[in-house]
């Protein structure tokens, strides 16, 4: 049997934040937080490390830049050298705009693709029911029962003390 999950619903994100802090101090595992907007300061409490998406952006941007210059240089100076108004075949300054645009294009598209892949988001992906209010105005703090001594009523008490408006218990993982 999977450990039971306890979800507390909060209207103010700061109440949730203080509840999450207490959980961290007392060693109660926080399974997840689901909220209608990003809660600032939560990453530190939950120990979420900064995203490494910027690396994808940087590397793919560099790839775009290399591809941009490579494509222009190869087509204009090697594959079919064409004399345009007596300009040199490797007209580097004239190649900057297109190389720049391709840098941005590669970096931007791959950032979005990486975000979707890493967050496992895709069209028509099904979402578990029961948390509909978290896309409206409620923030859900989902805790797992790791210690048998910490009973259901203790969870309810913890949520209420921090100003939760509602709480529920589940055995099935909502994730």
């Amino acid at each position, binding site marked *: 049997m999977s450990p039971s999950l306890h979800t507390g619903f909060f*209207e*103010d*994100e*700061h109440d949730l934040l203080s509840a999450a802090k207490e959980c961290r101090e007392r060693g109660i595992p926080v399974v*997840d*937080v*689901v*909220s*209608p*907007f*990003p*809660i600032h300061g*939560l*990453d530190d409490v939950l120990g*979420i490390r*900064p*995203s490494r*998406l*910027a690396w994808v*952006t940087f590397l793919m941007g560099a790839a775009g830049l290399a591809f941009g210059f490579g*494509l*222009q240089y190869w*087509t*204009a100076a090697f*594959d*079919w050298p*064409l004399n*345009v108004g007596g300009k040199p075949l490797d*007209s580097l300054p*004239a*190649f900057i*705009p*297109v190389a*720049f*645009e*391709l840098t*941005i*294009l590669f970096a*931007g*598209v791959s*950032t*979005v693709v*990486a*975000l*979707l892949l890493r*967050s*496992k*988001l*895709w*069209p*028509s*992906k099904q*979402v578990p029911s029961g*948390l*509909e*209010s*978290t*896309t*409206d*105005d409620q923030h859900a703090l989902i805790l797992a029962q790791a210690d048998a001594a910490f009973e259901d009523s203790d969870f309810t008490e913890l949520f209420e003390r921090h100003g939760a408006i509602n709480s529920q218990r589940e055995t099935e993982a909502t994730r």
Partner: protein
Amino acid sequence: MVDATLEVPLITGDLVPADVTRDVCSPLEGKPTGLWYAGFCLALVALAIGGTAVLYQVSTGIGTWGLNRTVGWGFDITNFVFWVGIGHAGTLISAVLLLFRQKWRTSINRSAEAMTIFAVICAGIYPFIHMGRPWLAHWVFPYPNARGPLWVNFRSALLWDVFAIGTYFTISLLFWYVGLIPDLATVRDRAKGVRKKIFNLLSFGWRGTARTWSRYETACVLLAALATPLVVSVHSVVSSDFATAVIPGWHATVFPPYFVIGAVFSGFAMVLTLMLVARKTMRFENYITMRHIHAICKVVTFTGSIVGLAYMTEFFIAWYSGSQYELFIFKNRMGGPFAWAYWTMFSCNVIAPQLFWFRKVRNNLLLIFLLSLVVNVGMWFERFVIIVTSLHRDFLPSSWSGYTPTLIEVGSLVFGFGLFFTLFLLFCRFVPMIAMFEVKPLLGKRKRELQQTNREVA
């Protein structure tokens, strides 16, 4: 109750997050108003009339336009530059103001970005139909073809346009859609039946877990950081279409910054036009407040003043350069056959926005609306003046000519506006017009500020 700050709140009406969801989703869930139907019909009529003209031109040929050997660019490129320019304000609001942490952007960024996308679509139409044989449009892309392979000329500013506009459209669309995902999830969770299925498809299974939000915010900042230099590059490249040519009146190094600021100017004027209509018809007065409108008015005055400075710099340099051709062109602009266009441009762009210095003007919504239209007329004429007056007097006096647009050309102008407003009105009806997840955190802050103040007073 004492207000903690002298600052006017960004969102008025003491709303709670649930109110935001309800207010923003209600246009999607209810029946549209009569005003919406009236606007939509008008836009469709414009689209149909313009579409007929465009179809006739494409099937018959470029000869249906009033262009001649001397004036090879007219309404087509004017419309192209005009619409690309309109788009720039959307990116500026969503990307640049995000990087500068300007919170007032949150009420208007969604619709300004939509405006960008639709404006870039409209802009793309004109070079496309100007090709004369648009069915060969794929020739502008460098792909291994059976003609050699004959590659495109990467040294041409016109080709840079293909890459600049293409990238701009793609990145703007992605940025806009990524920004929409959490709000589409909100709509999904309120919907039933087929609507739920559709929004489930569109919202990518978004839940809003802490880890996803963290990653999501990083991605948004990265996209903003990419879009900011991109938007500057786009109109710089567009201006290179002119600046890299040796035509007097075009061959100027001031063109890239002059075009970019002009684009921001016209775009903000269009944002003002659309927002004033949206807040009235969609009842978004609590979201798009006088504070937002004042801020946009100030941006319009600021950018309008820079545009005025650019006009005068151009004229000064024409005299200072000692080039008789340059000076001739500028004298001709002010007193030649197109002087009426020049003075329309000057009064609409340089003089009219200065009225926003007066608080009384900034508080008069009808006047703001009219002035925003005036600026857009002026900015359309700016492109017309730059293109047509520079071309119609060639180096050889025997090549001098005039230019009169045909009805078909006017039809292509109507087509752009028809398409733009059709798309925008559909957007108002089917997409959450205000970024709910960005507005909601602002409310809490307001609420806490008030509670804090009340406690202190007590």
